[in-house]
């Protein structure tokens, strides 16, 4: 397929670093993963070099898939997941992106509940400093027959500087009528009173911020095989920003 590079008119690339995308174009075909019925699949994606990751994942009947993402490196980093859930399948995403300077980081997910009784849970946390941009575009599509879908999406971003940007677009497209789809989205700053409380107990400002940010991203990597590595890399990156 000889498609030309995307532009800002393409919704999925609207906030991207277009010149970086053009430089990387044409991209290799997305990695295709098929999780057979009843199977279990897990993957950790640590994006720390400035690259584009694209995964197409089909989760078979009654199968489970857990993806953990830490998106922290390079000028432009993108992780794109296209997940299709078959009957009774389960998909879990725990993703953190932490950016400073002029970094542009994004996570794009499309989770399609193609058949009934599938469950999905997505947690995305972004911490942004300097003039960094962090984007999460998350679409959940529920097909007409996919009754008893249960989908949860929790999206939060923390801005450490007023000059940083967080884009968040949770999106639901539901054609079935007996489903549970919860989603929440919040963008904020560190609680000033909380910071003062920590400082009043003797913790230096940078350490107080780090402690609160650690709490903000804590739990996202729970259950990941590489949990310790991810947490260590996240803390190191946070330490560079505060």
């Amino acid at each position: 397929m000889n498609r030309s590079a995307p532009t800002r008119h393409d919704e999925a690339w609207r906030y991207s670093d277009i010149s970086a995308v053009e430089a990387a174009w044409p991209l290799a075909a997305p990695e295709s993963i098929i999780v057979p019925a009843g199977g279990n699949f897990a993957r950790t994606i640590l994006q720390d070099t400035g690259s584009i990751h694209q995964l197409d994942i089909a989760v078979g009947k009654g199968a489970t898939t857990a993806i953990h993402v830490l998106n922290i490196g390079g000028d432009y980093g993108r992780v794109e997941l296209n997940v299709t859930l078959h009957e009774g399948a389960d998909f879990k995403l725990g993703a953190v992106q932490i950016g400073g300077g002029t970094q542009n980081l994004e996570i794009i997910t499309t989770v399609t509940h193609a058949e009934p009784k599938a469950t999905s849970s997505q947690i995305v946390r972004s911490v942004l400093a300097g003039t960094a941009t962090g984007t999460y575009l998350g679409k959940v599509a529920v097909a007409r027959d996919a009754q008893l879908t249960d989908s949860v999406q929790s999206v939060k971003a923390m801005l450490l500087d007023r000059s940083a940007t967080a884009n968040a677009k949770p999106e639901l497209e539901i054609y079935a009528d007996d489903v549970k789809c919860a989603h929440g989205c919040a963008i904020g700053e560190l609680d000033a009173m909380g910071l003062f409380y920590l400082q009043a107990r003797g913790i230096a400002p940078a350490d107080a911020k780090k402690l609160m940010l650690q709490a903000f991203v804590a739990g996202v990597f729970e259950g990941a095989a590489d949990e310790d590595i991810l947490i260590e890399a996240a803390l190191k990156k946070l330490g560079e920003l505060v």
Partner: protein
Amino acid sequence: MLQITNLHANVGDKPILKGLTLSLNAGEIHAIMGPNGAGKSTLGYVLSGRPGYEVTEGSVTFNGNDLLALEPHERAAAGLFLGFQYPVEIPGVSNVQFLREALNAQRKNRSEAPLSGAEFLKVAREQAGALGMDMDMLKRPVNVGFSGGEKKRNEMVQMGIINPALAILDETDSGLDIDALRTVGDGINRIMRKPDKAVLLITHYQRLLDYVKPDFVHVLADGRITRTGGAELALELERDGYKELAA
């Protein structure tokens, strides 16, 4: 220990403290009482360095050093502890982690060796036990899901662990039932009633002073101390109200 001289402070553009002078010596417990809006909490925040509380005139020295030149965490390391009227909830950060980090940050600032996990837990267990707080609560996130009384009790546990030279306790008695009030009062006496320590109790009511007997009682009204007396002044205030005495 603490010398406040002609202290003026603004919150935003609004003057709140208007020439407050107060002196605390080691071994003394002082109570500051006064009506709503007199500037009691502002005094606590100014002394502990909360951003947005601007000193416009006057001075504060703590053990001979300029307190106002220090950052909040440096004031804590120097031995000052503020017990918050509304202790802050910090989701995701456990009490144990928070307090160990706080204590060791203060120790580092004073060039003392950090406490190991085991050493810290021993101190924490002692203090929590003395204040009737379950160790399980100390493992939970800071103040999250705590009742008003539990938060105040947690402030006292923190004070016991940190073991400061000077405690400013901002309405530590509010939100406490009778039993908790006694526990907290006993805690203040046990931790702070020592020849080398001092306490500034900020309160609306006389009842905490039944448990923690002050050496001095001051009335704070409209940003300055309008009257000073002994413990009996608190009883007088309770009987006659502030209006009569603050005038």
